[in-house]
């Protein structure tokens, strides 16, 4: 089922002459894992920021469930419909891992209001990505890059979004953790019918993809490896 669509999107950063994306189009469906590949600076993160409603394009449209993203409440879209795993993690550094998760649940107006219950869910989510309780109670600043990345993954899943967008989610993980994170992401797509979009450099990640999208010279190369 069609979930996200980008149609003829051209994107240029303020002050630069060359467009990063030049009239690109693509369709993303539920139940599938997509990987986006391309050289550094090709525009992968830019594409994700448009899909995740962090930025809007001046030319072309992004559609979510058939509605133009520019007309939706993008705060609500970000907090409820999509989960983003950022390349730079973007966690609250002075807060504990578990607080980062419960805050995300609260922002998305989760049905679970009881604080204890929220915390239990957060611990369980963190445990799934390999963060034990003791680590979960530490501040983000006191965690390694790999641990922060896993907290970022858990946070993106915390509000049960339809779409999961990940920018190099396994870049800081060892092979074993990478495998378990990929297993989680594939299961979310194939068993829970989520749309999973992953930007990656890793062969291991492209291997699990249902579809691979390359970016080169501002164009999307759908179904091609670059």
């Amino acid at each position: 089922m069609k979930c996200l669509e980008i149609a003829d999107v051209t994107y240029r950063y303020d002050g630069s002459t060359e467009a990063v994306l030049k009239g690109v189009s693509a369709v993303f469906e539920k139940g599938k894992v997509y990987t986006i590949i391309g050289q550094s600076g090709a525009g992968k993160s830019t594409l994700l920021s448009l899909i995740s409603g962090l930025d809007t394009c001046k030319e072309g449209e992004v559609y979510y469930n058939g509605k133009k993203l520019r007309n939706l409440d993008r705060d609500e879209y970000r907090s409820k419909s999509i989960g983003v795993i950022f390349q730079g993690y973007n966690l609250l550094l002075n807060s504990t891992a578990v607080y980062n998760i419960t805050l995300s649940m609260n922002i998305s107006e989760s049905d679970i209001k009881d604080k204890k219950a929220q915390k239990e869910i957060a611990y369980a989510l963190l445990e799934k990505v390999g963060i034990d309780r003791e680590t979960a109670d530490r501040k983000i600043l006191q965690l390694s890059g790999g641990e922060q990345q896993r907290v970022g993954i858990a946070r993106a899943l915390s509000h049960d979004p339809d779409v999961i967008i990940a920018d190099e989610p396994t870049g800081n993980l060892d092979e074993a953790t990478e495998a378990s994170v990929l297993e989680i992401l594939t299961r979310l797509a194939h068993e829970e019918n989520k749309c999973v979009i992953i930007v990656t450099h890793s062969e291991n990640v492209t291997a699990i993809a249902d579809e691979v999208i390359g970016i080169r010279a501002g164009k999307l190369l759908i179904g091609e490896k670059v």
Partner: protein
Amino acid sequence: MYVFEHALLNLGKNKGRNILLGIMLFAVIASAVIALSIFNATDSIIENARIEFNTMIQIRPQRRQMGGNDNGASTVTLEDLHRFADSDYLSGVQIGVGGGFARGNETVFYLRSPELLYAFEAEMREKGLPDDWAVFRDESSYRRMIAPIENLQDISLTFLIVVMLFGAAIMILLSVIAIRERKYEIGVLRAMGMKKNKVVLCLWVETIVITFVCFVFGIIVGTVLSNPVAGALWTGEGQINIALNGITALQILGASLLLATITGAVSVSRITKYEPIKILMERN
């Protein structure tokens, strides 16, 4: 609501900055309490003195242009004074008598209220107060009486204005610094989908809590210090008694919340300027 919880947690997380902000605010509030207490106390002293003075009426023979003495002026007898004193406009009278003679110029009539002066004068003229006698209020002794109080009032008002301006400047500066420091955090919250108004509410709650704590301590310390400070500045006779009243406390609270809100407004204007992606990209 989670926004309030988040704001309270943040207070603990930014201790250094909040303590600095708190100390500044506390000093501003305590100083404002002192200044405003003194101002209000002097204000009511002046007001009472004015009412009292305005009801005290005297009469005296007009000085002649030449000679400079009262010789030749008409006389006012004791009987006249008693007739003048028998008036509905008066609440009391002190008739001047010396050596068995009436002393018109030492007599004080107390009006029931200040604006009855002209009616009372007209009545006395009708009852036979000669035209070369003047009816007057003793302006110069009034001036002498309130000069030190007015002096104290001027000092306290100037001090109050300086303190408030200084306080506002510091608060705005600190909040601009705080926003810059916390830009990343704001970007993260916005990227997670927290709405702008909630982010602003969060920052505002933090400021209000700090303001309120500082208000409580500022009121206590300011009240304790206002009497010694007033004593040190007081050049008049006797002692001046300063007490903080409820109105003053409310004025201070209002001013503090206003300061906090001005600060908040500065934050709002800054936050709404940044889109989350811009903030986060600056860092990555």
